[in-house]
């Protein structure tokens, strides 16, 4: 029975040691795999704020993930083809600088989350699930038919975007960028959960009346959480598009929204490191059991079923046996 804190440290260790091992042993693909897991983890950490702590299940977080991807794709594409993006009020030809792209991504994702949140948070329960799904589907169909940016064929970005001082095409250097972002996001999350806002959000999941009795505005709480959640997942989307050097409408698919939820459940809902553990396990399962047979989805399904039926509270719940998150 280990404490959650020890488990978290162990996971942090894995995140650092595995890529180092891979680097020393010339296995760049393992680094790429870890980068993929880390990016999915960031996306799921964003979702966990809304889903795990806020308690509202969004089945449309792929909307933000895809938006992040397309923001990156559009900015970089204009830059690499020397086509002007906007002419007024200033001439802007797009950019391939990662930090700038991230800032724009976070702002736009937050804006989208504000719009979607204001409409969707009027509903609850399965209605909320469905309306968030609807928005993601709208973005999916819209991007499929928007030929200017490739439609269903998507956009290819031949060279990875640039980060001052680093060679981003080198797998280990790109991994370090993504992993650092994950650590920053986790740190931010950790502080947020313990802040008055975080505690109020947690309480609002359990009882709306009590939270309002203490003087918090329920809707404001939820909306703020949703906006933060969307911004983080959007950032992950920009990183994902950079990893694959490609963005397409499939980043908006509802199956992807479902996968984010799956990561959180596998790891442990509402736990800080839940999404990280879930993403790591899922990416590794996908990689390793794919070799068993052409029908490996069956095994994946069986494993997920087992986790749900017998592992209440996800992996963290199983290993730590603590009811709530402790410090």
């Amino acid at each position, binding site marked *: 029975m280990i404490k959650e804190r020890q488990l978290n440290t162990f996971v942090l260790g894995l995140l650092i040691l595995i890529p180092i091992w891979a680097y020393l042993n010339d*296995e760049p693909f393992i680094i790429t795999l870890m980068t993929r897991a880390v990016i999915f983890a960031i996306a799921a950490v964003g979702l966990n704020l809304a889903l795990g702590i806020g308690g509202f299940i969004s089945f449309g977080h792929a909307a933000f993930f895809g938006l992040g991807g397309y923001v990156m794709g559009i900015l970089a594409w204009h830059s690499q083809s020397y086509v002007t993006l906007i002419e007024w009020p200033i001439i802007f030809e797009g950019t391939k600088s990662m930090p700038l792209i991230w800032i724009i991504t976070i702002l736009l994702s937050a804006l989208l989350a504000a719009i979607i949140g204001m409409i969707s948070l009027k509903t609850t329960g399965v209605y909320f699930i469905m309306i968030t799904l609807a928005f993601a589907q709208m973005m999916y*169909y819209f991007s499929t038919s928007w030929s200017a940016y490739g439609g269903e064929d998507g956009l290819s970005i031949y060279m990875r975007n640039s980060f001052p001082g680093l060679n981003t095409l080198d797998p280990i250097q790109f991994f370090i960028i993504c992993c650092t972002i994950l650590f920053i996001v986790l740190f931010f999350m950790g502080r947020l959960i313990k802040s008055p806002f975080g505690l109020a959000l947690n309480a609002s999941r359990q009882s709306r009346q009590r939270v309002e009795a203490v003087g918090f505005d329920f809707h404001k709480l939820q909306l703020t959480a949703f906006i933060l959640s969307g911004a983080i997942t959007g950032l992950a989307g920009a990183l994902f598009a950079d990893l*694959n*050097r490609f963005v397409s409408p499939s*980043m908006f698919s509802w199956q992807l929204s479902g996968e984010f939820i799956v990561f959180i459940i596998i790891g442990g809902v509402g736990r800080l490191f839940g999404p990280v553990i879930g993403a790591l396990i899922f990416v590794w399962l996908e990689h390793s059991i794919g070799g068993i047979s052409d029908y490996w989805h069956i095994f994946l399904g069986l494993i997920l079923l087992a986790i749900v039926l017998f592992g209440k509270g996800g992996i963290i719940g199983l290993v730590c046996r603590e009811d709530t998150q402790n410090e």
Partner: protein
Amino acid sequence: MNKVFKFPIIISTVLSVIAGAASADTKIGMITTLSGGGAGLGVDVRDGFMLAINQSGRSDIEVIIEDDQRKPDVAVKLADKMIQSDKVDILTGIIWSNLAMAVVPSVTAQGKFYLSPNAGPSALAGKGCHENYFNVAWQNDNLYEAAGAYANSAGVGNSFVLAPNYPAGKDAIVGYKRTFKGDIAGELYTKLGQTDYAAEIAQIRASGAENVFFFLPGGMGISFLKQYAASGVDIPLTGPAFSFDQGILQAVGAAALGVVNTSQWNKDLDNAANKSFVKSFKEAYGRLPSLYASQGFDTANLVISALEKADVNNAGAFRDALRAADFESTRGDFSFASNQHPIQSIYARQVIQEGDVFTNKVLSMVLENHSNAYVDDCKM
């Protein structure tokens, strides 16, 4: 994750030593769709490809096959794995244009050869062409251009055109209009993945068109054909082979009978390579091959023919050997245009029934030694 096919045969080893062929192993990575709804096409390409590899008797070719699940990011991940971890020399296999767009540019930029057994997006034929990218099937527009040419030769004055609202669909209409000289009686774009076409069929009926050209791949085509046949509308249908391939025809059945479709290959093409291919495919797999299988078969034979001349590690020589296309194609005459897409003949064929099986029969050659519209855009 690895499916490794190696076929050591003593005679071939001796022969290859005598012939002085490359002794280093050539690794080919095949990324194709083997699960989910569109798996039939990937299975066909793989089976055709491996049939040729087996028949060659060479022991120095290793093929690693992976399933992309029709997801672009999985395809990219697999390409990375094959290049970084498996250290392949050649990649191939992708069925869908959107996955090809995700994978091909970075594969060729990293100095690896990519031979497409199916997807032929215009972006990679024109401005995005690359000396390491070869397409062994067709450029996406080719079959649609042939349909337009067929309509001209059949004296069609106006057509109703129908395709899903996504790049490949729009390309289909553009390709058809490029050659078709008549008027367009109606133009409809459906939703990708749409299954009910009653509304579109009603529009077709009301349009008074002389024929209908449609592009609806996979399940969409099956639904449309069944519903069209049941609707009583008797305006003739035409389309590219993608809705009339051997795998789909069995699911559509009588609803497709008589439809004219365009293809660069059919099982009754009269050349020795094709006759032997159809026979051996049927023996090996117990079913008739489709055009996808023929494309996989030809791709493998292209590689083998190039390996006879040059080592894959000598990029310049290997590329020249590929460009020479010195192999017996199941389509008869085959050569490459300057943008490394096929110059080939395209036929109009008709769906018929042979006993229990639905298949196609060649009607006429519609385009002879046809290249593609993007040759000039390619500055290689």
